């Protein structure tokens, strides 16, 4: 099942096919596919500036992807990353504002913990609804996104509004001193490090811990897991919580590293883009990193493609859509190439 060589070959094959289809799409717009691909490369990875652009966009995607990845380990399809980002961002802003004068270390620590806790509880609620009340987790997590955004708008337009933010209602600012800065001389904020650490950490938990193994058993067959005496409800809720915590942390970082306050900028679609990354990574936390960078790169080059080739903004969505469909289709090929399994099966 966990044949690394097979995963690599099929993923690479799928990406090649996807980019060929994308090339046909470029040609259909009257552009030379090679020129557009070069622009894509230039905008995404062609220079240090482009790399920074890509990595800054990839950072929140890593965290929001985990919100779909972790629940998927126990067999739940959760698409509530957007809501968890908003809740995490909003709640950590409140804590940041309350502790504003306690020094940056206290403020940021408290904000990170609050973001993770509230985002985690938000998605754990989805898991609980599914387990105890049999509410479909995909639908409930989607609807919770709208509820989160509505709460944010209600508070930001209402009691939390900083009167100085006239035409862009926002909360008060947590203060320049309390913000998370950039890494060294780059323009990449520390959120990237949080993202990478979270992906690697959760990968270790998923692959090399009893909890991770138990989660896979629950995801594989929940009845078998029960018969084996696993604490199913605990594992299920913890997976939801950890996923939600990652997305909530993404919200905290949006506030602490970018906006400095909570406003409508929190629901910018990172939660939804994260779903795409999670499926591309086949719910492997470690694979989330490269796929988030790939998607970040495509988004980073979107502007240059518009400017250099007069392509519409939707080009980015077309590329993302094609890659998504081809990767999902490629799932059909797992286990179909016997020669790939020959050596492995002999061993196991």
């Amino acid at each position, binding site marked *: 099942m966990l044949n690394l060589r097979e995963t690599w070959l099929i993923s690479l094959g799928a990406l090649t096919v996807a980019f060929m289809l994308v090339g046909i799409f470029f040609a259909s717009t009257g552009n030379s596919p090679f020129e557009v691909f070069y622009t894509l490369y230039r*905008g995404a990875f062609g220079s240090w500036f482009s790399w920074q652009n890509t990595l800054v966009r990839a950072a929140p995607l890593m965290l929001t992807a985990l919100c779909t990845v972790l629940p998927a380990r126990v067999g739940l399809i959760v698409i509530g990353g957007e809501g968890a980002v908003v809740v995490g961002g909003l709640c950590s802003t409140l804590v940041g504002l309350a502790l504003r004068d306690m020094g940056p270390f206290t403020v940021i620590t408290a904000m990170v913990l609050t973001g993770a806790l509230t985002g985690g509880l938000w998605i754990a609620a989805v898991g609980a609804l599914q387990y105890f009340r049999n509410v479909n987790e995909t639908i409930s997590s989607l609807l919770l996104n709208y509820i989160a955004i509505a709460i944010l708008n209600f508070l930001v337009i209402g009691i939390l509004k900083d009167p100085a933010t006239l035409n862009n209602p926002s909360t008060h600012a947590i203060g320049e001193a309390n913000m998370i800065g950039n890494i060294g001389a780059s323009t990449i904020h520390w959120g990237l490090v949080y993202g990478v650490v979270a992906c690697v950490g959760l990968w270790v938990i998923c692959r090399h811990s009893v909890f991770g193994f138990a989660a896979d058993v629950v995801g594989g067959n929940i009845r078998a897991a029960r018969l084996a005496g696993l604490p199913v409800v605990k594992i299920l809720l913890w997976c939801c919580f950890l996923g939600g915590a990652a997305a909530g942390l993404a919200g905290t970082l949006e506030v602490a590293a970018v906006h400095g306050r909570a406003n409508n900028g929190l629901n910018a679609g990172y939660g939804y883009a994260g779903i795409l990354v999670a499926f591309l990574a086949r719910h492997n936390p470690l694979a989330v990193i490269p796929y988030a960078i790939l998607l970040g790169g495509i988004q980073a080059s979107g*502007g240059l493609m518009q400017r250099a080739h007069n392509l519409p*903004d939707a080009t980015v969505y077309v590329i993302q859509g094609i890659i998504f469909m081809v990767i999902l289709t490629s799932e059909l090929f797992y286990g179909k190439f016997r020669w790939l399994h020959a050596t492995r099966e002999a061993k196991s």
Partner: protein
Amino acid sequence: MSKNNPTKLPMNRRDFIQTCAVTGLGLAGGLSSLPVSAKPKVTMGFIYVGPRDDYGYNQAHFQGKTALAKLDWAKAVDEENVPETIEVQKAMESMINLDGTQVLFPTSFGYFDPHILAMAKRYPKVTFLHCGGLWDESKHPKNVGSYFGYIDEPVYVSGIVAGHMSKSKKLGFIAAMPIPQVLRNINNFTLAARSVDPNITTTVVFTGSWSNPVKEAEAANSLIDQGIDVLTCHVDSPKVIVESAEKRGIFSCGYHTNVAALAPKGFLTGAEWNWSTVYTQYAEMIRDGKPIPNLVRGGLKENVVKVSPYGSAVTPAAKAAADAVIQSFMDGSMVVYKGPIKDNKGREVIPKGTEYAQTDIWLESMDWLVEGVIGTT
């Protein structure tokens, strides 16, 4: 980095370090050369929060940008659908670093704080001109400016026409959010209509979002079911609202761009931006090396905004009244906010004898709705 680039890029210590890093990575990353033009052109970058063809706010700016394409000494690049996050910062940086843009027009309100302010600090030689913001000398960098139009003037004209054309004396206004710019439009529309007939009311629905076509259509239908017979709006794109009004056989007033084509029968008039004038003026200032003013405002008189041509349904009486109002805006004699004005909770906001001229900053922090508006902020 800027060796072969005629438009000198700003270089501070951080940029210098980055440049060194880029040169180092150049071998691995295949550093691409910056675009080089033979003659230095005035390069301007435009960023929109929505699509270029939304029949609304973004299209109005896109039309302004398109006007620059006709000038052979100017070059304009643009990017659509850029969210109000770090992505807009990166879009600005990309235009500066990869296209050599000297002046940027990030057109959405939410781009200003913190995004434009952060970039203005990092690129002190690039000019950032923001639509709708209020540049404040004491707080904001010198290379930042803001511009906006008194679009509430043509909205007032719409209100006059609506007041004349309405039979049910009930007008409808679909708005995104209760922020000052929006409230001012609602108030102007209502004050104008009530100057025609004091029994007129305006029912307001806030959708909570700049672009939510589904909610906008629902709001339009529910307002029409309540007996409203003229509908207007302040959302990013008036398309769905004007189309819904047309389908249900009522009148509509446009906003942002000319939407007459969407409602051939019921379209009355509308408030439009005229960004091509503003952008061409800015381009000329930059070409001639003139200092760029930090705060630009203008209305009908300055040709920053305009009134859409009247639709076929508009009666001669309504046209005459509207033309008279336009005339008084043009000669500067029109004062919309002249006391006594009460809000819709009965409180007197502007006492008798007090006047607020169009340019008064106080009006830019409006948080109340005038008497005759049904709805709350």
